[in-house]
């Protein structure tokens, strides 16, 4: 049977697509499928040693673990909600300030970008040095205003709030830039009309600007929220394995890493990661629906 031009052309398309498809399959699909498979086994110590299928036992173990798993879920939620909420409020405030052109605006915007450019591990080490309870500059500065020395990252109770503030320091500029981009696309007429009607600046912000900016805010929340949920490097660099001595900063990501690399419990670690992924997907779906509803 003679090969038609369409058939030949279709084969060439597949041949050219094959490397990209193979890459996606190997690098994305395979790890996902293998993680789900491992979560259903008793893989321990070595994945190249024999393993047995244990059904949903690992999921039951994870969900029944009130000592490490559920506290880690709680910390993940607290860290994400706390940090992202602060970043949104501060980011919005800064975006409103930077909305109108002023002299030196470019310089201010460039300075704002600096924390975004540094890697989280470098930022972690930088803040560890600043906040060191014995030698850090933070306690010296606090001493000038009469505040007693704080333990910051060395304290069981202060670690998570401190990490949230470091995250806010690093990521507020990104929220600012996203929201600023949204603000510049808003029409000026509704705000102008409100001004003519005698609305105060606060009233114009709450009743005119914010409703129009809703879609942008929700999109920024999705982007930053998912990123904050997955925070690992900053926490691991500053608190080490297990998120500190009392597991005080152990989020789900840190817990899963510990199960994998410190305990070599690959089955349970995979189950935690599958649950974590489902959790992130659920958050994204909820926020996406809200975004679509507000857009419509």
């Amino acid at each position, binding site marked *: 049977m003679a*090969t038609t*031009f369409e*058939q*030949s*052309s279709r*084969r*060439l398309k*597949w*041949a050219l697509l*094959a490397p990209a498809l193979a890459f996606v399959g190997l690098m994305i699909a395979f790890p996902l499928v293998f993680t789900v498979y491992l979560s259903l086994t008793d893989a*321990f*110590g*070595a*994945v*190249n*040693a024999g393993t047995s299928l244990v059904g949903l036992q690992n999921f039951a173990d994870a969900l029944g673990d009130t*000592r490490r798993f559920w506290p880690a879920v709680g910390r993940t939620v607290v860290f994400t909600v706390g940090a992202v909420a602060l970043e949104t409020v501060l980011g919005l405030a800064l975006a409103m300030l930077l909305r109108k052109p002023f002299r030196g605006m470019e310089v201010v915007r460039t300075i704002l970008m600096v924390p975004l450019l540094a890697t989280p591990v470098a930022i972690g080490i930088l803040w560890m040095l600043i906040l*060191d*309870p*014995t*030698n850090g500059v933070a306690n010296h500065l606090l001493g000038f205003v009469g505040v007693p*020395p704080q*333990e*910051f*990252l*060395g*304290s*069981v109770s202060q*670690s998570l709030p401190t990490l949230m503030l470091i995250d806010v320091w690093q990521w507020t500029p990104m929220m600012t830039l996203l929201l600023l981009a949204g603000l510049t696309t808003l029409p000026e007429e509704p705000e102008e009309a409100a001004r003519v009607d005698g609305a105060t600046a606060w009233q114009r912000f709450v009743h005119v600007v914010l409703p129009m900016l809703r879609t942008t805010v929700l999109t920024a929340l999705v982007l930053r929220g998912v990123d904050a949920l997955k925070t690992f490097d900053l926490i691991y660099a500053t*608190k*080490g*394995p*297990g998120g*500190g*001595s*009392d597991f005080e900063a152990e989020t789900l990501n840190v817990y899963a890493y*510990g199960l994998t*690399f*410190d*305990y*070599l*419990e690959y089955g349970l670690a995979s189950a935690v990661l599958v649950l974590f992924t489902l959790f992130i997907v659920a958050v994204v779906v909820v926020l996406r629906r809200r975004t679509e509803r507000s857009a419509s």
Partner: protein
Amino acid sequence: MELQTGRALTLSRRSFGVLAAASVLAACTRAPRTASPDAPLRVLAINHVWTQAISRYLPEIEERIGRRVSVRMLTADQLTSSFNVKLNASATDIDVMTVRPLQDQMMFARNGWVTDLTDRVEGDAGYRWDDVQEAPRERSAAGGATVSVPVVTERPALYYRKDLLEDVGGAPRTLDDMMHAALELERRDEGFFGFVGRGQRNGAVSQWSSFLYSFGGDFTVDGRSGIGTPEAIAAYEFYGRLLRDAGPPGATNMSLEQAMPIFAQGKAAMYVDADAIYSNFLDPTISSVTDTVGFAPFPAGQAGSVPHNIPSWSLAINEFSLLRDDAWEFLRWASGPEMVARLQAEGIPGARQSVWDDPATLAVFPPDLAEAMRVNAENGVGHDRPEVMQVGRARDIVGRPLVAGIVGQDVAAVAADASAELDDFLVRDNRQQEF
């Protein structure tokens, strides 16, 4: 292959089939199972003074085995992660590994990642396996087979400020004296501490072990948890009080990297940590206590002075290595009597009794440190952490009451809870050890 050009690039059925088959074949081709004559012997090692010292002598072994030796150094955590990733993939690009016999070895042996060296060490008269001290030799075995050879041993040392301690009776000989001196000398308002030590849940366990043994306790007693016993609780409370009342703020976030600089900067009167790090206090570029630091044996508790004396780093051969004979030659050379004597004379304590018996090998150490090492080695226990397969999880459990003590919680209650958790863990861990 017939790539045709025309209005559009097309591919015939035969060419498509050839391309697909070639791709599948290329993907399925296995790497050769024998090493190339030009392949180097690859050593993946800890970033440690031992590795730096042995690297200077590599030309000797390169000449002996007739191939280049490539040494790559990583920190302990990176090293373990690297082994986990590479050996899970049966990697052949590691030949010789530095392992922590008390931390990784049992798990690695269970996983089939390390080569059985029993016949090699016992069948080689020139290697003199029986010259290796008993405790390190015993810790080189897992599952009934010798799987590593020790190269560095370690004990705790009491580092103290001679200028300050002489006012309170000199270096403490007992733990009670130590507490008294620490509380007497601390001026925390001025940033000076009576004692500094590791306080991290996991990282502090190994140094705390000497306190535990000296109070008469152990991690396990007759196969069950020993951390809920009165002796263990007393050791937890003692160490917790030492750091809480005389130590620096943020102690629970401190491991070696945070604690050592505090003593080196002259901000603490006493410090207990591994004797292997002594040179940090004698180096004027990083230490302000070079003239005032003293070294003493571990102070005695209710059960006497019972520090740990352990093989901290050993050499093993990757089971998937294609150069196992050459790797054994490396081990034989690096851990043999001659090299251990040479390195010990440079300040790196080894595990060979004949070397310890030779005073010339101790001449490099400050006299009071050499004496402290000798006494600690004599009284020492061969482990500094629970002897289990999942050491990381066990240390996390054992370290919980330690943290409770430092932050001033009810140690007995936390120890009881941790002890129950350790008992459950030991049942599971014993099951895993049946390999």
